[in-house]
């Protein structure tokens, strides 16, 4: 569905289903060089169960008009504007990788609007290696191949993909290539810099921690994630003492590598919000 946010076209996948008034709305936020489609398995299921669902394309990604925003703070402010445009007062936010920082920052900027936070493949500070940053700047196609490799537990997955017949790493790679094609303006580098320079994570985590009752928090980690290793997230997890941690045997692309396990973790989390 298309919205207008700050005068520009913004897209969010809404699934099919009839929203039930008692079910919380859920907003899904993708990571660097991705779009809403990484969340399809989860968004579709929640929509079918009567949740209002918005799986957004960030500006400059997929179907949302560019240019890409340069900081996590701007992306979070944009997300809140999108909620206004969609008429969503309060929602649970589920973010992946860069999207998890956006969710965290949105909870800092507008705590009253966030029902809960699900942070997948998250860490803070989210340092991006100099080598990867430089490759993203000079050779985006090569950066895409590197990230494809590093974002999956194996290039030949250990279990059949979902939907049937899909080769998950290959689909991830093509998606990133498509985003390059749609937005040739160094999107990957812009996103990586936003991750790398996001400085407000500590404050945001402290604010979420202070609002423990108001903002239930869930971390979903891939045990074999080398992009945001669970070990690197220890400080962030510790900063939000009430947060629960779910751990899944997969890499960084949790939602596509293990769609059913991620669904189950999110459903359990959302049930408790009520």
């Amino acid at each position, binding site marked *: 569905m298309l919205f207008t946010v700050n005068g520009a076209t913004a897209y969010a996948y809404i699934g099919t289903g009839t929203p039930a008034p008692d079910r919380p709305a859920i907003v899904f936020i993708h990571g660097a060089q991705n779009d809403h*489609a990484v969340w399809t398995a989860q968004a579709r299921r929640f929509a079918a169960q009567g949740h209002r669902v918005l799986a957004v394309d960030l500006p400059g990604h997929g179907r949302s008009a560019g240019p890409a925003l340069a900081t996590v703070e701007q992306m979070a402010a944009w997300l809140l504007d999108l909620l206004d445009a969609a008429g969503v007062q309060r929602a649970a936010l589920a973010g992946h990788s860069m999207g998890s920082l956006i969710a965290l920052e949105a909870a800092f900027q507008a705590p009253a609007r966030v029902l809960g936070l699900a942070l997948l493949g998250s860490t803070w500070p989210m340092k991006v290696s100099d080598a990867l940053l430089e490759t993203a700047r000079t050779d985006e196609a090569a950066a895409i191949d590197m990230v*494809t490799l590093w974002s999956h537990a*194996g*290039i030949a997955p250990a279990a*059949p993909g979902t939907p049937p017949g*899909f*080769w998950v*790493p290959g689909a991830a790679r*093509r998606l990133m290539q*498509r985003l390059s094609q749609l937005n040739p303006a160094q999107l990957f580098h812009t996103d990586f810099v936003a991750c790398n320079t996001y400085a407000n994570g500590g404050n945001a985590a402290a604010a979420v921690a202070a609002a423990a009752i108001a903002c239930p928090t869930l971390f979903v980690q891939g045990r074999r994630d080398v992009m945001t290793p669970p070990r690197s997230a220890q400080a962030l997890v510790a900063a939000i003492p009430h947060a629960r941690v779910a751990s899944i045997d997969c890499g960084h692309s949790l939602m596509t590598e293990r769609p059913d396990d991620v669904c189950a973790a999110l459903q359990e989390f959302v049930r408790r919000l009520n």
Partner: protein
Amino acid sequence: MSGPNSPGFTTLALHVAAGAHDSGPAVARLEERIAALEGGVAGIATASGQAALHLAVATLAGAGDHVVAAHTPRPDAHALLAHGLRRQGIATTFVDPRDPAAWQAAIRPETRLFVGDALGHAVLDIPAVAAVAHAHDLPLLVDATLATPYLLRPFDHGADLVVHGAGFLAGQQGATGGLLVDGGTFDWHAAHARTGRYADLCEPDPRFDGRVFAEESTVGAFALRAREAGLSDFGAAIGTHAAGVMLQGLETLGLRMDRHVAGARLVAATLAAHPAVARVDYPDLDTHPDHALARRLLPRGCGAVVPFALHGGPAAADRFLDALTVFGRTDGTGGARSGATRDGADTVRLFIGLEDTDDLQADLGRALKLAQKGA
């Protein structure tokens, strides 16, 4: 292979990548593995190569729509496009695959896709034909049965969809099954926005509760719809056993193709030098018009099928075929046993199997001599 630069990819054609799952339903594993071998996003296994081609066309085109195809496909594929699908209201214009202007001239508002065979009498100039297709918001489907993912990477050169028959992948002449692979390269959403051609992929589908496949998957909308609609409608699904046979065959694909190609090269060179032979249509020969193109697209070789023409017309071709003893008289390809069939009036089509090449050469030499003697 055409995937990311990783250790697993350089050997996927020869071996199964380390860590690949070897349990679970064979069909799903096969579909995923062919997608990986091709460097695409998703595979769909079907009952035959014909079923894969039919599924691809039926997913994109309906009554009143139109296909542009190379005039050189396998006889079965030609029949499906020229007759079977025409009865369903899908018209096909056949063009000279070597002439990009002919592809372009055949496009109509109701055209939905281009179809070409990678390898046959001609080598399909995938980059050139794909450029014409993409300039007109059309996808290019390549039948890569004779090339296999080991010899050709269609998606790297611009193809959007690929179909395979089971023969070479299974390594058995009689193997049943086919595969359809979505490369994830074609932007259905953008093409539909400009042309309105792909409503089934890009607009809410009442049949599926208003689902929009191009929203659910940015790069795999075709594969989603082909499976959810076409595969379930037409029912041309593969059996578990046939899928298992193909999976097993894939593990030795590279070894077998190298051997097929070595034999075919030898045979083609021998034929080309033989006085009884008028013409050899094997692109590996530097006299073939597609030789330079073949070098570029098919660096590992031009497959196992060698068509050639004999001096002396149909009668000589008949005498030649009758004299063969090692080559069987079958048009099946992909297995270990060589075969020879008529392919037009004075043309013979050889399929080079995995036998000792000395035996094959001796058989051909003897049969050629007998073919000449009767003249």
